[in-house]
């Protein structure tokens, strides 16, 4: 379970103990967010696909621990990658840094980078595949809001077919005996292979088309965007779009401890009037990006054990 020099590429590479370890260190970081434990260390951020939010939270995490950063956030304005293979780019850049954070539009790019680099590589999103620090941040937020991570009742709502976030989170959660409620339009159901995996692991779950059916049962409501582009027929989109907008008046039957999460940015999935209820937790979730990334960076650099 030693993290030093380890690559963080896929949530599936992490054991239950690994996950618990990261959560524990993140809790420590949350209590003590500014430290000097990474003084003299350099993190390179290679963002072949722009994602300002993710990049800034990585950079902030590094700087608050006393480290330095270099890299690029938009491959168009850099010549570093021109005509060069990802393998070669990684080989070259690793000489300048102690840890690499990579985001790429192709699936598997982070794995390839990790094979090329001797320094640890952290995947900050590879196409539609993995974004393990996002998944860890979701787990951290769930634990923080409920005081535990085991035996919770969790609803995932929205586009469950294409949502990478939901798929990875479902996998990770299945280590912690959850009861899951998948709420989506028929056309955007959770994929068959995930349902199959859940059955194999004997995880309790059910599928719904209306969030109101489960509102009084759940501890967490994880909402995601429904994108117009996912619907071949626009009429189908028009039919479902208003069903999946969360409004304050729908929360009447919710348990006191129920918290709403969303990977943000939201479009119209959550009404603004939900923001000042005790259930809104998505801004806290966004803030958790820093302690969780601080934990992961300092673990792979050996500053935390």
């Amino acid at each position, binding site marked *: 379970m030693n993290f030093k020099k380890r690559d963080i590429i896929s949530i*599936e590479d992490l054991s239950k103990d690994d996950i618990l370890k990261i959560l524990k260190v993140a809790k420590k970081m949350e209590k003590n967010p500014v430290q000097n434990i990474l003084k003299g260390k350099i993190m390179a951020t290679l963002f072949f696909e722009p994602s300002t939010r993710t990049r800034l939270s990585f950079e902030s995490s590094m700087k608050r621990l006393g480290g330095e950063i270099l890299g690029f956030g938009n491959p168009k304005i850099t010549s570093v990658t021109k005509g060069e*293979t990802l393998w070669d780019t990684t080989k070259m850049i690793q000489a300048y840094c102690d840890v690499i954070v990579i985001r790429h539009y*192709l*699936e598997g*790019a982070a794995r*390839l980078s990790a094979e090329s680099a001797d320094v640890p590589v952290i995947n900050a999103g590879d196409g539609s595949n993995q974004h393990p620090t996002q998944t860890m941040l979701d787990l951290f937020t769930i634990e923080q809001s409920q005081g535990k991570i085991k035996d919770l009742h969790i609803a995932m709502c929205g586009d469950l077919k294409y949502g990478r976030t939901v798929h990875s989170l479902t996998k990770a959660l299945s280590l912690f005996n959850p009861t899951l409620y998948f709420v989506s339009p028929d056309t955007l159901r959770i994929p068959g292979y995930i349902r199959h995996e859940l059955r194999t692991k004997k995880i309790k779950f059910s599928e719904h088309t209306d969030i109101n059916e489960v509102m009084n049962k759940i501890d967490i409501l994880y909402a995601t965007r429904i994108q117009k582009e996912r619907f071949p027929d626009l009429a189908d989109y028009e039919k479902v779009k208003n069903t999946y907008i969360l409004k304050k008046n729908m929360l009447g039957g919710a348990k006191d401890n129920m918290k709403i999460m969303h990977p943000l940015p939201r479009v119209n999935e959550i009404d603004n009037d939900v923001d000042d209820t005790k259930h809104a937790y998505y801004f806290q979730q966004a803030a958790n990006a820093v302690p969780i990334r601080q934990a992961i960076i300092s673990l792979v650099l050996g500053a935390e054990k």
Partner: protein
Amino acid sequence: MRAYKVYAIEEGTVIDHIESGKGTKVIELLNLKDSTDIISMGMNFESSQVGKKDIIKIENRFLTKDELNTIAIIAPTATINIIKKAKVAEKFKVELPDEFQGIIKCRNPTCITRNEPVKSKFKKFSESPLKVRCKYCEKVFIHFELL
């Protein structure tokens, strides 16, 4: 390719139960085209086990472990008969290795292996149906769909 040539050999290897249509691929990947051994291939035989099948016979040659693994990847249903003195001296099934690289491509067009000069790598995911998972993009495929 006449029938009697396909049927009896004195010494060598018979690769049987190749899924129909994959025989030429096996010949290609084993570099048998450039070989000086006598090679015969039969296509579309009826088989109770795999529907239609191809058969390849290589005279005076016994395949290496690497060659057998290659066969397993493109013809996972194949059986191998080692022929000595016109009799079957040994008979076994090939088995898809737990991990293998190269030979077949990932079918996901936005997989890094389809866009950069890097060898594909797969892991066996399930036995029946035989599924494999790309080590890079992590997508799972029915093995036959990749052939």
